[in-house]
């Protein structure tokens, strides 16, 4: 049972001095950390190679904090955050960022809602002024909230209802979680989205948007001193709110029954098996199990040539694709995922039996020491390569802190990964493979595939800038 993200009580936050964190000496090079009097926690990631800076504000609230019947309100409010304040007209924030050569966006997930701008470093004060302004002064106009509700409904149509894989994922989550709100889609159930109002949005904003429930990340061409000075100037005056921090959520009871689901749809071209298993997440001071699960996922499915499932299933002609995935950045227990697309000629039952046999063999044999060593080599190299993207590192810290980890937990993560032993991996494999808390889903083509024109794309599509590390629903 893991409610671990309760922020410190407000009184303690108010008493906290405005100083850089005590662990400064242990900070990785270029990383600094401080907390303002009003409780706003901040991380600065220095990278002066280009005159670019990224500002992100992560609120520690997401769709899993919603009340039943109001699904989608966290994401809908994210959209409405662009509808202006007393100082800034609806839509003007994005337009101002763009007119200054920058880009901005926002995204919502189960555990957090985040806003960011990427802009020339001399424009940092501009975006900090606007972002801090909407932390306290949002004004949603009469004309704006209904049109925006249509926009999020169109977003649902585009992302979910037009995609049988996304629809299936939504239903699998609903089955995976008996009681925890991770069983509800981030974007919301359509019927409930249609009923969301401006009053709902304002109530959500008033309850959760406050500096003591947020994390500020400044990454790029800025010094820690300048970043702190600007943070104090713009965010310092924003008043904290008592009770803004995340409250306890409904938790999962013990799950004793493996579940199976099947769905056919004419829009599906190839059968796919997706199995999810309920497993622990990363917790403050306690990330060892999550590290072992992370390495386990890499060993099982991280490479199309050398991973366990690739060798056993792809190279032997039993599967076209295999995958294993785990992301421990979650407030509450999350899922480990194993997926497979059978090779033509193999029945789905045969493919699933082959998968189960491969997993059982791994459980018996344990990890190959040479493969484990190669994975760790890559973990260490990732520490070098990731310095190439300040924006990417901003996600690591923003997501980590917004799910309740401390900065030292984020800093220590690579070392914890590197310390994972074969015994840890065996234990993690038991956790995954011995579990009854799993859902096995088959997404299947319908009998009669639709006819389509057999012709194709030309020249490059217009360059769309997408954020590589953008989780959840975006604006």
């Amino acid at each position, binding site marked *: 049972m893991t409610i671990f993200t309760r922020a410190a009580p407000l009184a303690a936050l108010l008493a906290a001095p405005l100083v850089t964190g005590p662990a400064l000496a242990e900070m990785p090079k270029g990383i600094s950390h401080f907390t303002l009097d009003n409780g706003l926690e901040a991380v600065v990631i220095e990278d002066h190679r280009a005159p670019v800076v990224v500002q992100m504000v992560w609120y520690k609230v997401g769709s899993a904090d919603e009340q039943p019947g109001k699904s989608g309100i966290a994401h809908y409010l994210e959209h409405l955050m*662009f509808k202006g304040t007393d100082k800034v007209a609806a839509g003007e924030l994005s337009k101002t960022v763009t007119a200054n050569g920058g880009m901005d966006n926002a995204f919502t997930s189960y555990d957090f809602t985040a806003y960011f701008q990427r802009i020339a470093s001399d424009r940092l004060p501009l975006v900090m002024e606007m972002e801090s302004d909407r932390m306290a002064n949002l004004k949603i106009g009469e004309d704006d909230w209904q049109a925006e509700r249509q926009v999020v409904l169109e977003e649902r149509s585009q992302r979910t209802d037009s995609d049988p894989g996304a629809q299936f994922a939504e239903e699998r989550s609903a089955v995976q979680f008996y009681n925890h709100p991770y069983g509800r889609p981030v974007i919301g159930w359509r019927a409930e989205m249609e009923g969301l109002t401006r009053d709902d949005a304002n109530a959500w904003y008033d309850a959760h948007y406050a500096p003591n429930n947020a994390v500020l990340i400044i990454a790029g061409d800025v010094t820690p001193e300048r970043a702190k000075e600007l943070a104090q100037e713009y965010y310092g005056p924003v008043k904290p709110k008592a009770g803004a921090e995340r409250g306890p959520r409904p938790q999962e009871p013990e799950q004793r029954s493996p579940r199976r689901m099947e769905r056919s749809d004419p*829009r599906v071209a190839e059968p796919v098996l997706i199995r999810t298993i309920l497993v622990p997440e990363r917790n403050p001071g306690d990330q060892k199990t999550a590290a072992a699960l992370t390495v386990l996922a890499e060993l099982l499915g991280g490479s199309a040539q050398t991973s366990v499932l690739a060798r056993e299933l792809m190279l032997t002609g039993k599967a*076209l*694709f295999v995958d294993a995935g785990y992301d421990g950045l979650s407030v509450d227990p999350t899922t480990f995922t194993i997926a497979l697309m059978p090779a033509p000629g193999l029945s789905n039952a045969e493919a699933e039996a082959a998968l189960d046999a491969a997993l059982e063999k791994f459980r018996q044999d344990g990890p190959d020491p040479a493969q484990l060593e190669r994975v760790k080599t890559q973990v260490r190299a990732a520490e070098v390569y990731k310095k190439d993207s300040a924006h990417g590192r901003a996600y690591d810290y923003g997501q980590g802190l917004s799910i309740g980890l401390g900065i030292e937990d984020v800093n220590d993560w690579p070392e914890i990964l590197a310390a994972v032993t074969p015994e840890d991996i065996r234990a993690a494999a038991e956790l995954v493979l011995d579990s009854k808390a799993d859902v096995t889903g088959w997404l299947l083509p319908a009998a009669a*595939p639709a006819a389509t024109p057999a012709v194709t794309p*030309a020249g*490059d599509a217009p360059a769309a800038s997408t954020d590589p590390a953008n989780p959840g629903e975006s604006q």
Partner: protein
Amino acid sequence: MIRALATFVFVALASLPARAIEIQQITSPGGIKAWLVEDHSIPFTALTLMFKGGASLDAPDKRGAINLMTALLEEGSGEMNSVQFAEAAEALATSASFNVSDDALVVSARALTENRDQAADLLRQALTQPRFDADAIERVRAQVQSSIRSEATDPESIATKALAAQAWGDHPYATSINGTAESVAALTRDDLIEAQKRILARDRVVVAAAGDIDAEALGLLIDKVLGGLPEAGSVPLPEPAKLGLTGGVTVIDWDSPQTVVTFAQPGLPMSDPDYFAAVVADHILGGGGFSSRLMDEIREKRGLTYGVGTGLANALYGETWQGGMASANEKVAEAVDLIRQEWARFAEGGVTDKELTDARTYLTGEYPLRFDGNSKIASILAGMQLVGLPADYVNTRNAKVEAVTAKDVQRVAQRLLHADQIRFVLVGRPQGISGDAAAAPSN
């Protein structure tokens, strides 16, 4: 935008941060040219190679050969089978991705300084000694066939393919680089070797590197990686494509609550004197995200879509001005009508001073932000060489944007933006709008 923020809006008009990117143009001892941006702050090097011609160099009856060949470059070479090759790369923590598009086969590699030479040996082996083992061919062929089947049930792919087929006639741009189920099934090992000869040659390649390497070391490295390639490709580069697009609407029936829309009309080449005026016009019309007219009219004011956008699609051998969106079946007719209206309004009315100023400020301000990492810099520098831009373009490009006037924008809009020349392809069950007979999708 009012009061308190006015000072910052003014700042936007002031000079932009000009931290010059210093591009070294080098020639290796073996005579291969490359561009380099040195930065020794992180101990790794990013290297991008682009082989010009891409999948458009496929022989007409071997569509999909270059794509399949490209996917097999990492599936075994020299003395190593696919597993051994991947293990060797993992042990060095180096990576190389091999991708092909209509215009180029792109290799994006990175290696730690501590074992850069060993990583270069692996890359050389992949490019010069691919094995094309029978089991690897069959495995990857099955994956490509699966992608072809998946694209056939994906409404966006269906729309893009139908538009390309109408646009590009006999040119390879008209068909998928993946090939068809039939063409891919028929490919032999000899076809893959022929595909390799068509594209993996020294006269096809442009080279860019960024990171912890100096000019001398880079020269030796690229000779090692590329020196063993043949001097010249076995066939000429692709011919320019002739755009055969007609205005109108194509509807492809697809059972979905939403209609996917893709649309295009003639564009202009980068060599056109009005190219930058068109870049500015596109930003204001539909390329500028939330600040564009189409986004404002169709999403912000009416909630008809989650997103709509346009862009100048400049490929090496042909160009269009294109865009896309998705909208509910019962609303898509209104959204398409608004696109046509905005097209006409732009051609007739031009742009306001504020729109022009904002667009120029965005386009010039955003440009230097792209160069914030070794991998990004290597990729941009290779792309510039592929399309034939000079190295000093990074320092002259913004002046070209700044020089665009409202008259320039109006001139290019009047010349190019014709609502009746837009071909819309709609995939869904749209209401209140139907396709014209001229453009039934070919099969």
